[in-house]
């Protein structure tokens, strides 16, 4: 009754599944992912070429062993190194590299695993970096072109030290490339290829940094002073101009006014002269009468003689 449930075909499928599972476990079948490559060893000795195509593969179970390695582009980022430049500036240089295992067999034989590879890369790349940096000026490691010299938009507060303004032939890119070239040479023997090395960071060492800060501060202070004194100078200039123009305006006005007044006076005199010269005697007579009108007041004492004209006139009226 119980045994009849497991009929023949079910039994067969079951057995197949178990068999395949066992094959995997035993190591006859193995999967190679797109990201991996495999070296087969038999009793420690490599067999055949490394397997780089992805998919299902066969090997002898138990006797042969599959070693997996990365097929992808890998990264290496070393510890920053303190290196002096040719002009004795101490800087931290942090490089980063991209590399690949191109010959898994050689890799297995020479390094065995990525940990060893990383330490080997440390040696190779760090020494290449050190050689390159010590052989060049700081400017050459920082700048890439001479663009900064051409673009004199450095601004009016330019803080530029002399050394920064040196014309360079080897710039950052060329320097980096030389590190790459140097590093590439030693790589093939380990079954790897160093695809790229670049400078990730450059920073001053603590003491140098302090000095640079001081320089920056001093330069800025100098620029600030310059602005202030320019302000003083210009405003004094404007003030002077103001004073000068004021003087000009008022003196000019005065001159003109005087001229006008003078002209007026002269013309008036001429008018009077022309008029009165027609009969000077009569004029002086009128004038005398006017004088009486103007000078005699309540406090005056008038003395008339009997032969004065007035008396005569009065007499004549009667």
């Amino acid at each position, binding site marked *: 009754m119980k045994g009849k449930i497991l009929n023949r075909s079910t039994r067969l499928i079951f057995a197949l599944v178990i068999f395949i599972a066992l094959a995997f476990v035993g190591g006859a079948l193995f999967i190679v992912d797109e990201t991996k490559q495999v070296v087969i060893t038999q009793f420690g000795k490599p067999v055949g070429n490394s397997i780089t195509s992805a998919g299902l593969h066969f090997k002898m179970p138990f006797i042969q062993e599959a070693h997996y390695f990365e097929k992808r582009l890998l990264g290496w980022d070393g510890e920053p190194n303190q290196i002096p430049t040719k002009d004795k500036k101490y800087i931290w240089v942090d490089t980063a590299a991209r590399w690949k295992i191109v010959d898994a067999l050689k890799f297995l034989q020479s390094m065995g695993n990525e940990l060893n590879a990383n330490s080997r890369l440390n040696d190779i790349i760090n020494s290449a970096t050190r050689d390159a940096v010590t052989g060049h000026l700081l400017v050459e490691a920082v700048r890439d072109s001479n663009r900064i010299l051409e673009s004199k938009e450095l601004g009016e507060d330019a803080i530029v030290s002399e050394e920064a303004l040196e014309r360079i032939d080897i710039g950052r890119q060329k320097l980096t490339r030389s590190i790459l070239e140097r590093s590439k040479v030693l790589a093939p023997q380990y079954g790897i290829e160093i695809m790229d090395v670049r400078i990730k960071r450059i920073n001053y060492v603590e003491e140098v940094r302090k000095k640079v800060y001081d320089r920056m501060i001093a330069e800025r202070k100098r620029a600030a002073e310059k602005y202030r004194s320019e302000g003083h100078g210009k405003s004094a200039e404007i003030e002077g101009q103001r004073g000068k123009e004021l003087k000009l*305006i008022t003196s000019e006005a005065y001159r003109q006014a005087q001229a006008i007044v003078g002209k007026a006076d002269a013309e008036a005199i001429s008018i009077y002269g022309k008029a009165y010269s027609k009969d000077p005697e009569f004029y002086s007579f009128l004038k005398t009468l006017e004088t009486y009108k103007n000078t005699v007041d309540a406090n005056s004492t008038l003395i008339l003689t009997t032969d004065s004209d007035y008396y005569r006139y009065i007499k004549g009226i009667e």
Partner: protein
Amino acid sequence: MENMDWRNISTPEDIINLGKKKLSGFRKHIIWAILAFFVLIGLKGVIYSIGPDEVGVIQRFGKYIRLTSPGLHTKLPFGIEKVTPIKVEKIFKEEFGMGGVQNRGYAYGNHADESLMLTGDLNILDVRWIVQFKIKDPIKLLFVIRNPQNVIRDVSEIVMRRLVGDYSVDEVLTIKREEIDRLAQVEMQKILDDYQTGVQVITVKLLDVNPPDKVKPAFNEVNEAKQEKEKMINQAWEAYNKAIPKAKGEAERTIREAEGYNLDKINRAKGEAERFSVTLSEYKNAPEITQKRLYLETFNEVLPKVKEKYIIDPKQSSILPLLDLGRKGGEKQ
């Protein structure tokens, strides 16, 4: 043996027999349970879904087979086929210089130092920026590079520091920021394409760019000094603009006044000359009468003002007030 129950157990063999009996009843169920278990696992490995912003990368026994689009799909189970969903629409963001992100144990372990970099004029700036990117080729992303986030971060730092190293402090602080953004995006894309990462750099953007803390006050001082200069010059011009027009106005006024005087004086002169001429012609016509008239007019005006008036006869030798016209206000004789 049939009516065995636990009270009657006396030997170990009895226990084993009891156990066997109980198990044989379950045997049927166990096999069904195992089969059901496997079916469930299989189903779980067969049906999968891909989100609307994703694609699915299908590998069979590790080998790349195909891409699947969003929706519900089936695949072979039990590790035969593997699906990796990749977000191809999402815009990812990486931040730099924000401190503490990748402290790699520098000897000068201050986090803030990670954002410091050297400029082209060999000075130091504190630079923070972000990168936005998208996955444009999921196959490359999965199979060509390991740890894409590291690659993107490294390349971004490499590029930004190289660029900043070619510009001056002031350029990076102010006018060249957009240029640097643009160049950084182009260069990053080029390197990432060379590496075949399958990543598309959408933007690179500089955020805060500052002089290092220690130096900031000096930089601020420069800005203040610039403003001071402006202020001083403005004030000077203000004073100028107040004074000059006013002076010009005054100058105008002075001249107008002079002109007014001019007019006044000449008109007066003309008037008086005219009056004289008229009087003169009148006089010429009747000299005696005119003279008398004028004389009398004058004294008529003058005498009343005077309090003390005396008329003296010169033929008399002493002075006597013969006619006192003054006291009694007498104009009459």
